């Protein structure tokens, strides 16, 4: 009787080779897709952060309109979490004087978008991952100092500048090194 213990064959090498090829293809697919996804996410998040900064400006205008008086305080840099004064080239470094609130403190406000927009479920979670922070100074003069009032020509109306930043993380976890931060300024006068 013939012995049937032939060790010849090619199924195993072929299977191994196929496995390697498939794995490489799969890995390539995952890398291209994930880099596309992260760049898309980045774009989405920075445009959402822009609108978060816009919300900050609206909130600041609303706050300004309600104040009986506007007293410049001190440099807010230490109290700011991510909307640092160095993001704004119009302010000379160290010369920002934030407007105070009625309690005599520098008025700095930050919040998540979920606090402004009522939503539930997934949407609420998404909104809680975007935040803004703002402070207000008298509009800086041409040298970047904010301690003296600039007035609208021909009137007695003082110019104020709102500095607002939007961030694609919640206000407590936003970090300037890793998050998308969009900085905006708006100049207003109070009627």
């Amino acid at each position, binding site marked *: 009787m013939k012995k049937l213990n032939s060790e010849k064959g090619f199924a195993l090498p072929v299977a191994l080779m196929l496995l390697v090829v498939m794995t490489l293809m799969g890995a390539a697919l995952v890398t291209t897709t994930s880099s596309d996804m992260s760049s898309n996410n980045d774009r989405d998040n920075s445009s959402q952060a822009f609108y978060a900064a816009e919300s900050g400006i609206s909130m600041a*205008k609303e706050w300004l*309109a309600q104040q009986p008086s506007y007293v410049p305080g001190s440099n807010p840099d230490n109290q700011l979490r991510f909307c640092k004064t160095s993001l704004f080239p*119009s302010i000379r470094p160290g010369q920002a004087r934030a407007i105070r609130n009625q309690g005599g403190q520098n008025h700095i406000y930050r919040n998540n978008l979920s606090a402004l927009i009522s939503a539930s479920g997934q949407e609420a979670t998404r909104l809680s991952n975007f935040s803004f922070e703002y402070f207000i100074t008298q509009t800086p*003069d*041409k040298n970047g100092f904010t301690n003296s009032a600039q007035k609208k020509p021909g009137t007695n109306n003082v110019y104020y500048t709102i500095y607002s930043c939007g961030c694609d993380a919640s206000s407590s976890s936003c970090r300037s090194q890793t998050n998308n931060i969009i900085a905006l*300024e708006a*100049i*207003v006068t*109070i*009627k």
Partner: protein
Amino acid sequence: MKKNTKGFTLAEVLVAVVIGVISVAAAFSAYNYYTKSYEAVSQKANVNSAARDALILITKDLRNAGFIGTSFLNANCENLDSRTARLNLASVSSKRPGLSGRYGQSDFLAVWYAVSPQDRKRVFYWLVKKQNSNEYFLARDVVINPNGHSRAGCPGWNNNYNHPVNTELLVSHVEDFQVIFKDKDGKVLVPACSTSCGPEEVKQGWQQIVATSYGNMNKGQANQQNIHSADIYLTVRSPKEVYNSNRSFRIVNGEAGYGSNISVSADKYYRETFFASVHTRNLSIPQVPTTNTAGSIGEGQGYNK
């Protein structure tokens, strides 16, 4: 030792060869199909991301367009006053010969805005043909203080300062580029151009002198103060052929008369028109404040990073 005398019959070999050829052909055609479709999808993806990135840049410039800071008129190096600073804000000139792209319909966009109390930035966007190629690119060129430094205490012209980057080519294979300005009622605003206006603006009498609250200007310049929003259309073609059969494409951008309406002869390229609309916050101040902001009026927003 027994010699191995086993073998295959001719019929067996033939069958094996036929099966082998069929399976190799199937594998090859599948591979071919997948590479082709991958190529097509990646061409579309590249066209998309390049066009989107360019639109982000254009919308950013248009949002800043016309910004004049509160100290700017007292300190700017170009020595602009309240009238001359407003002669150049945001300008579109259409169908300018040599600058209007492959189909002769495209626009030339220029925006100006203050980046500090001393400095003003001028940004141009237009379609340019690259040397040795028949293709048009969307180009962007930035100049700081284009009128030079005429105020005492300002430095002389210096390319490192005034023209820090050479003209950048943002997107390749651009077919058409349109910017349409609208006023606060949504009406198309033509002419809104400051200098070197195109045939369309000439037809609309851009050089007529009109009185504004900042003094006399020509009509094209005066209209810049009324721009409330800008619609941007960018039509891009894939660098390589994508489709198996010829397809025709129609570019329809904006309202007839001022936009473009182009029929492209049928070919195998992929084309897409990208659109963005921007509120030009520094040009036309909103007339109706919302209840939230009724207590304050926006003067301008800018110096944006």
